């Protein structure tokens, strides 16, 4: 069939373009606009070029919180991905037990972010929280409001509790999609459990794992509500992550130019790393 070139067809793209413009492009351009100006008040704006960007990149407070952010996201991925796979592997394959497990595992995902923060804030308290009190009873000195290490562990634990189910559910669906014939063949070939995992299950989980890694990276890299509610960023600034630093800057200090430059850098980092993950994983596939 011959295609008839007709440039008027571009008009059909217009509704989508408008929608995307309003939802993403225009807000983004406003931020770009702020990032190159110093605004004192209405009508008092001065063009400052890349000034804000230079300042932001050399700001020590921001560098620290960026480092913390990377540490946090790496820890999240290192814990949640293997744990999620493990949980998925242990879940019953079908039947009433399978359904029950699915519901139980999915519950944390249904809880609103700041409720999660509140739950853990109380749960981990040494005086009235079951978790904190229990740990203290074991003779371990645990106090997430006072100790940096404890605060970090608590934030991590909370995130693991909240988001590992997502990884587990994704992996579970991936595992269910593997045809029974592969397990039969492996059984005939006398493959060990590990060999079945390594050569049959893991390769076939690849596509869901790409999604899981990307989602968990982006989400953890932009984490705000839960640590804000749980620790408020403390003790000191030990659990102050990027988005909290940004919020303080933009809304607390009303430092719009700097915050705008910072947001753009933040956005580019997320974009860049997601792209790196994606190409790394999909490229490994194409070799050979």
């Amino acid at each position, binding site marked *: 069939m011959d295609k008839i070139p007709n440039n008027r067809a571009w008009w059909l793209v217009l509704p989508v373009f408008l929608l995307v413009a309003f939802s993403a492009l225009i807000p983004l351009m406003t931020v770009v606009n702020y990032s190159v100006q110093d605004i004192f008040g209405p009508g008092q704006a001065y063009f400052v070029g890349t000034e804000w960007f230079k300042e932001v990149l050399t700001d020590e407070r921001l560098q620290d919180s960026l480092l913390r952010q990377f540490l946090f996201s790496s820890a999240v991925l290192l814990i949640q991905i293997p744990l999620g796979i493990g949980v998925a592997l242990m879940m019953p394959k079908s039947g009433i037990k399978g359904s029950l497990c699915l519901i139980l595992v999915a519950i944390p995902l249904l809880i609103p972010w700041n409720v999660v923060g509140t739950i853990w804030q109380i749960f981990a308290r040494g005086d009235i929280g079951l978790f904190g009190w229990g740990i203290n009873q074991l003779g371990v000195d645990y106090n997430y409001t006072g100790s940096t290490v404890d605060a970090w562990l608590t934030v991590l634990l909370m995130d693991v509790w909240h988001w590992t189910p997502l990884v587990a559910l994704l992996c579970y669906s991936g595992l269910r999609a593997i045809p029974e014939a592969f397990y*039969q*063949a492996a*059984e005939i070939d006398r493959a060990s459990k590990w*060999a079945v995992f390594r050569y*049959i299950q893991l390769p076939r989980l690849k596509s869901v794992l790409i999604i899981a890694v990307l989602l968990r990276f982006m989400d953890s890299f932009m984490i705000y509500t839960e640590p804000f509610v749980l620790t408020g960023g403390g003790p000191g600034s030990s659990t102050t992550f990027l988005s909290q630093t940004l919020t303080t800057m933009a809304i607390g200090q009303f430092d719009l130019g700097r915050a705008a430059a910072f947001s753009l850098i933040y956005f580019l980092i997320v974009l860049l790393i997601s792209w790196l993950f994606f190409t790394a994983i999909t490229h490994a596939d194409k070799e050979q």
Partner: protein
Amino acid sequence: MAEIHLKSLAHSYSKSPSGPEDYAIRQLDHVWHKGGAYALLGPSGCGKSTMLNIISGLVQPSEGEVLFDGIRVNALSPRDRNIAQVFQFPVIYDSMTVYQNLAFPLKNNKVPAARIKERVQEIAEVLEIEDKLHKKAKNLTADEKQKVSMGRGLVREDVSAILFDEPLTVIDPQLKWKLRRKLKQIHEQFDITMVYVTHDQLEASTFADKIAVMYDGQIVQFGTPTELFEQPNHTFVGYFIGSPGMNLIDVERCEAGVRFGSAEVVLEPWQIEYLNRLSSTNVKIGIRPEFIEIGLEPKVNSYEVEVLDMEDLGTYKIIDLGLGDETLKARVDEDFDARIGSRVHLTMPPQWTMLYVDEFLIQEQS
């Protein structure tokens, strides 16, 4: 290598089978002898694959025992039965190369690395995929995948048996023939018990020394290709083996033997005697198209028949002959010629005329 004995085996996929129709395999006893090359032949849905999966241990039989060399293995997993099986649809590990695929069962069995290399090379040569060894298995064509899948079944040397579940389905006919020869060679070389499931009689007879014909959950005959052809034990075997299948005619008893329409078929005295002892009204006679004799002149015990149709198959012809209400097929030489509508004379040699009561052959007691 092992002798595989299926003892009063039956299998039903339903939890509480209420009648024989609920059984995928009806109770049967069967022995696959050590080192034999066997085919399990039957139409789709007759229970062939179920039986294979029961032997390998992928399916637990609901009744009866599976014995390997006299030892009960019902409770053992396929892993512990040490059995190789090739599936109808190729299963390949697509994250591995062809080499790794073939080496996988050996690696799992802790075979020394040097031996793995030798063995993989050997099997790859047999299957003619040595040039593909380092390709990713996922990039192979369908028939290459099938070969790899088959190779994994053949690569282990110490297996009790190798089971093939229609392994050549997706392979084109030319290669099919070649691979079948290869399997046969491998069998002769290594002397492993092999059971080959197929619904293709040609495939069964080129591969196997003995063929088990399965029908409706039962093994209705177990014999050499010649036996199946000359002495079908069951009307189904007559119908299923041969192309075209056996002529089967419903008949009634009469004094000289049996008759259908106006035609009487004279039977041997022992056949009549046997028949008289049975009360069933389900009586059939069967004769293969190859054994029907046709002449232009009447003979003793010949019937006048009308030529209804003639089909030229190149090296021979199949003609349809009308005798009363029945239509019989006969195979004749290429140079035989008769007008459609003309009348010829048909003889059924007694030694090739089989008598079936309740679908089973009446055999002379020796």
